C-alpha cells in the first residue's frame, strides 16, 4: 500500500521507497528525518484539500511531507 493511501492511525512498516522518483535533495532530507526501509510509520493528520500535506510519524517523530512525496513510499500494515 502507498503511504498516501494509508488510513489514519494505522501503524505500518516501510517496505520500499522509490528514492529515484524524489529529487536528490528531497531524498537526502527524507533520510535525515529518519525515513528508511523497515521503519515504523503512521499517518496522523492531513490537510483540508486532498489530505495534502500529510503529518506522519516516523519512528517517534512527527514529520510533515507533501502527498506527492508520500506516493513514493510503500508500506505494509501486517508487521
Amino acid at each position, binding site marked *: 500500500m502507498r503511504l498516501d493511501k494509508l488510513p489514519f492511525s494505522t501503524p505500518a512498516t516501510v517496505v520500499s521507497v522509490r528514492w529515484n522518483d524524489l*529529487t536528490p*535533495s*528531497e531524498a*537526502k*532530507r*527524507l*533520510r*535525515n*528525518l*529518519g525515513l*528508511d526501509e523497515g*521503519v515504523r510509520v503512521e499517518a*496522523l*493528520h*492531513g*490537510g*483540508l*484539500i486532498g489530505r*495534502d*500535506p500529510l*503529518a506522519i510519524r*516516523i*519512528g*517517534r*517523530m*512527527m*514529520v*510533515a*511531507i*507533501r502527498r*506527492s*512525496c508520500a506516493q513514493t513510499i510503500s508500506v505494509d500494515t501486517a508487521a
Partner: protein
Amino acid sequence: MTSIPMIAVVGNPNAGKSALFNKLTGAHQKVGNYPGVTVERKSGRLSLPDGRPAELVDLPGAYSLEASSPDEEVTRDVVIGRQQGERQPDAVLLVIDATNLDNHLRFALQVIALGLPTVVALNMVDLAARDGLTIDSGILARELGVPVIETVAVRRRGLDELREALGAAVGRPRQAQSHSMEDVVAAQRRARAIAGRAIVAETAKRRWSGRLDAVALHPVFGLFIFVAIMFIMFQAVFAWAKPPADFIGARFGDVETLVVATLPPGLLRSLLVDGVIKGVGAVIVFLPQILILFFFILLLESTGYMVRAAFLMDRLMASAGLSGHAFIPLLSSVACAVPGIMATRTIEDPKHRLTTILVAPLMTCSARIPVYGLIIAALIPARNIGYGIGLQGLVMFGLYVIGIVGALGAALVLRHTVTRGANQGFMMEMPKYQAPHLRDIVLGLWQRALIFLKRAGTIILVSTVILWALLSFPQAKPGENQLDVSVAGRLASGLEVIMRPVGFNHEISLALIPAMAAREVAVSALATAYSIQDEDEGRTTEALGNQLRGRWSLPTALAFLAWFVFAPQCLSTIAVTRRETNGWKWPAFMVGYLFILAYLAAGATFWLATLLGF
C-alpha cells in the same frame, strides 16, 4: 582567550540544546556572526568543576553531517575543524532528546565517529518517562563509548554531573577518526539498533501532544483556531497597548512642558521640543504595541505552534508557488523583515528562498505600526462594530491582510517570471508542544525593546534632527511660510510634483524623504514638520493626531496607508537583502518593484476613495 578550552554544543534541532546552553552559561553570553556567512555564533563562559573556565559555543541544530542548509554547514565545518574564524573544539557536548532516541542517535553516532572527546547529555528524560519510555543510560554509554549524563535542562537536573564530565573530557586527547558512520543509512540503522537496546521498557501511553494536534491540525477546526489566534493577536496589539502608550505619551508631554517652561523661545528650544521630544516621542509611544506583537510571535515559536501553522498554511503557500517553509520567515517578517529574511536560510531551494526574500518586506512589519497607528487613531472612528470588535482594530487587521495577499500575489507573479523553477516539496519536523518558558520570552522581549530604543536613539533621532535643521533653515522672513522657504520644504516641493497625483500633500512628500531610512521616521518627521509650522504661525502645538484630523482628507490618509503597505522604506531590509543574496541586483530589483506597487496602490486608493465620496 585562546588558551581556554572550547566546547561545542551540538545536537538535532529541538533537542533542547539552547535551553541547556542557557542554563550552563547563565547570562554571560556573546552573540556574533561567523565571517562570510550570516549564521549566528552564540558563545558563553562555563566554569569547570576545577575552577578552569571554558568557552561554550552553541552551534546550529543539525540532522546529519551531510549538511543541507547553511546552518548545518557551519555545524559540520566547526566540528571537523574547517570553519573559518573558529578553532576546532577541544570537546563536544552532544545533546540528545530522550523521547526521540532513534533519530537523534544517528547524528550523535556521526559526531562521535570524528574522535573528539565527547559527552552526551540525554536531555528531557522526564518527558521520556512521561511517554512511558524507560531508558538505561548505562547501556547507552557502553554502546556509544562516551559518557552519558541524564539531564532535564529546564529544571537544571544533571548540570553538575555534566560539568564534571566536561571537565574530564577537555583534557582527553583526540582519537582517530572512524569513517564507518559517514553514510547516513548506516548511521541510521545502527542508531535504531542502539535505541532498541537502550530502551528497556516501553508502555504505550496516550500523549497529550498528540491529542492537542487532533484539534490543532484538524483540517477544519485547525484552520478556525489559526485564524482566531491571528485575530486575537492583532486585536491585542491595539487594545492592550493603549494604557502604557498613553502613559509614555504623557511623560513625553511632561518633559516638553518642562523644557518650554525653562528655556526661552529660540533655536535651542525648537531643536529640543520640535526635533528631539516630538520626533522621538512620536515613535517611542509605539513600543508597547511592538512588544505585544513580539510577545505573541515568541510565544507561538516557543510552544511549537509555529510549525503547525506552517503545516496548515502549506497548501495556501503552494498556490503562490511557495511552501509551508516560507510561512515562518513571512510570519517573522510581521515583527521585522530583517530576522524574517534571515530565517529564509532554512529554505533549501535557492529560487524558492529568493522569492521569499523578495516578498518578505510586504508583510506588515512592526515599523509600520507607528505609521498605521497614527493614521488609524486620527482618522478612523473608535467605534465598536459589535461582538467586542473595534473598527480601528479591524482596519489594522485589514492592512495586515492586504500585506499578506500582496506578498502571496507578488510571489505568484515572481515564480512565473523572474524566479521560475520546479516547485520544491515541503518537509519538516513537527516537534512536540512545549510549555513556554517565561524567562526566555522575557529575555527575548527585552532584547527587542533594546533594539527598538537603540534605533529610536540613533537612526530616528539623527534623521529627525537633520530634518529639523533642514526645516528650520533658512529662517523665514515675516510674511513667508517657514515650511515653504526651508531647504526641506523646497526638496519636498520637487517630490510633491510626482506625489500630488496620488493624493499626497506637501508635508507627506516631506516626511517620505527621511523615512527612506526607516518607515517610522515618517511619523516623527510629520510631528516635527507640523510642530515647526505651528510655532511659525504662533499657535500652540497640538498632538499630531489632532493636526492630521484637521488637515488631511480621508482619501489622502487612506492613500498614505496604501503607500506604506508596499513602499520598501527601510535601509536595514535593503542591507540584509544585499547580504543574503550576495549582491546589489536583487535588492535593487526589490526596491524598484515595491516602489512601483506603492505608487500604483496609493493612486488607486486615493482616486477610488475620492470617487466614493469619503
